């Protein structure tokens, strides 16, 4: 894993230069926005809102039928 040749090292340096240049936003902005998104979407999440699980296609509804 550590045995990179010169071409690979050059590529790694180029990649690191590219990665260094990206725009980074402050966590004081991104974290509250992430939390807000999650909390708003939770009402639509069937695992957290049992109302949404009422029509459960994986559960047999109705009584048994005599064939």
């Amino acid at each position, binding site marked *: *894993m*550590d045995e*990179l040749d*010169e071409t690979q*090292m*050059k*590529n*790694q*340096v180029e*990649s*690191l*230069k*590219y*990665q*260094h240049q*990206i725009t*980074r*936003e*402050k*966590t*004081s*902005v*991104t*974290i*509250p*926005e*992430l*939390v807000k*998104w*999650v*909390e708003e*979407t*939770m009402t*639509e*999440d*069937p*695992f*957290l809102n049992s109302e*949404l*699980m009422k029509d*459960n*296609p*994986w*559960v047999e509804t109705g009584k048994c039928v005599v064939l």
Partner: protein
Amino acid sequence: MGEMEQLRKEAESLKDEITAARKAVNDASLQDTVSGTAVVGRVQLKTRKTLRGHLAKIYAMHWSTDSKLCVSASQDGKLIVWDSHTTNKVNAIPLKSSWVMTCAYAPSGNMVACGGLDNMCSIYNLKAKDGNVKVMRELAAHTGYLSCCRFLSDSEIITSSGDCTCVLWDIETGTQKTVFAGHLGDCMSLAVSPDFKTFISGACDSTAKLWDIREGQCRQTFGGHESDINAIAFFPNGNAVITGSDDATCKLYDLRADQELITYQDSSIMCGVTSIAPSLSGRLILAGYDDFNCNIWDSLKSERVGVLAGHDNRVSCIGVTADGMACCTGSWDSFLKIWN
């Protein structure tokens, strides 16, 4: 020798600069932000269906976008397309090579793909006019095993490999469009962003990389894990990434701030994470482990809120339907279970 030394120094210096840039924007923590939020209540999901039919370990499964059909791959040499509502097998596709490690369902529902120790990604057309499922294309160029594959569309697919690269393929011509190189260890897993513009890969070099599909470049690299990353997924809003590792932890990385937000770990968990999937809102993270269980984590509070227990061997794969209504686990015990 001087050239290599210079490059090494430059690389180290750039890594230090990236670390500093990350620190500079780190002015809030997830823990503090949610300190006033309650942990979600205990989540108890039940097994609703057991899909029986494979004769050996299941290595992978993937839901169709219709949230009803799913495909699974087993080292019994078969790909099975299941109707998860009825448990019927829609297709049982015999594979040329039984050493399969991954499978994928195309978003259109028209194709499935698989691959493994044959180093190839085989594409199968499910909708052939004569009704027979046949190999449509064999994508060969990787020099290592195929660990994961995901369709972008019916004409493009991305693969990850033990040869440390990921590749974007043109399915029509069977050729490589782009090679994504940069990982220093086997690529184990990949996931495509909800907007299909980027994808993430997890590797045995303990890092996760975010790649721009059209530019062909790595935009961000996330470290922190102490061992192989086996599983990776996008957070449903596309702005964060979750990973699962042999180091027994899962992590959440923020793409906008370019850093790790939190680790999901417990001293009682000592085995590797094999698979990971978020619930529809991302509030729950379901992770499969080597100890035969799946843990359900509250992603914001980093606490375990549930367990899926029922398999008699390692949980190798997990997936949540697009509509969030159910989760499927696949195991080395040869069964798939549907939970909700």
